């Protein structure tokens, strides 16, 4: 039991890190501080590749992703914060470019839909149970 749990946890942790950058990328983006480098790689994981649509920038090697990585590198290296970099890209590519869309009327279904469905399911179970026990 513990063994299978361990394997399960291992799989989870591997899949959580599966999207991070590969070692080979290191020399391509020479940062002057470790903080900037960390910010850069965390941004690459959060930004979506416009061409491949279901991959982030870190996981994509398409020409446009490389252009965007270079752009993010320049912005981060010049001291921009995560928010400023995201704003810069959203102004050009729209909310699509970030994997974490803002809460606005257009995305209400996305953000609140699951909770709504959960509430509906819960009340359905509740109603049915009450009905059965009668």
């Amino acid at each position, binding site marked *: 039991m513990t063994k299978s749990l361990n394997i399960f946890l291992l799989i989870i942790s591997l899949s959580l890190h599966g999207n991070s950058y590969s070692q080979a990328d290191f020399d391509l983006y020479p940062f002057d501080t470790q903080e900037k480098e960390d910010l850069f790689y965390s941004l690459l994981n959060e930004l979506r590749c416009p061409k491949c649509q279901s991959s982030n920038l870190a996981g994509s090697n398409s020409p446009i992703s490389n*252009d965007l990585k270079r752009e993010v590198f320049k912005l981060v290296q010049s001291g921009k914060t995560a928010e400023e970099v995201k704003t810069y890209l959203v102004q050009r*590519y*729209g909310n699509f470019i970030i994997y974490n869309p803002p809460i606005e009327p257009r995305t209400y279904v996305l953000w609140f839909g699951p909770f709504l469905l959960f509430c509906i399911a819960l009340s*359905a179970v509740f*109603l*049915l149970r009450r*009905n059965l026990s009668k």
Partner: protein
Amino acid sequence: MKKTLDLIPLIIFLALILVLFTFLSGREDQLESVLVDKSFPEFSLTSLSDESSFKSKKDISELPALVNVWATWCIACRVEHPFLMKLKENSTIKIYGLNYKDDRVKALDLLERDGNPFEFSIYDFEGRLAIDLGVYGAPETFFIDKEGIVRERHVGVVDEKVWQEKFAQYLDD
């Protein structure tokens, strides 16, 4: 009471279908066009035909105009090319090219062979202006009105149908 309760799953199911249908049936497979109704971005890049000559926004001078993102590696651009040639001959609108991540010599050869519909082409090897335009592929076409504001963006080939649906309206007045 029991009867109405039995109907609840069906009603929820129908509501779900309705909601998903309305939200997913829109042709949202394309990126939103953030640039529409905004000013065309500033740039400074060389011209395709002369690497020592720099072009900027003020060189896109004859407005309204189209800016067409193209490249020799882009097959759909070849499909689109005859329509752009037709526009050049039959319409008053000027077309400016944005040669995107391409080889200068190959691009010039292609224009020589198949005809050049562009007033000039901007050479954007690094995709610098393309990022400011939110371009994610080729071909893409932008319509800029008399005031230099982007009014329309089309991703993909512009043909007669797309022209009538999306662009022709801006030329009527």
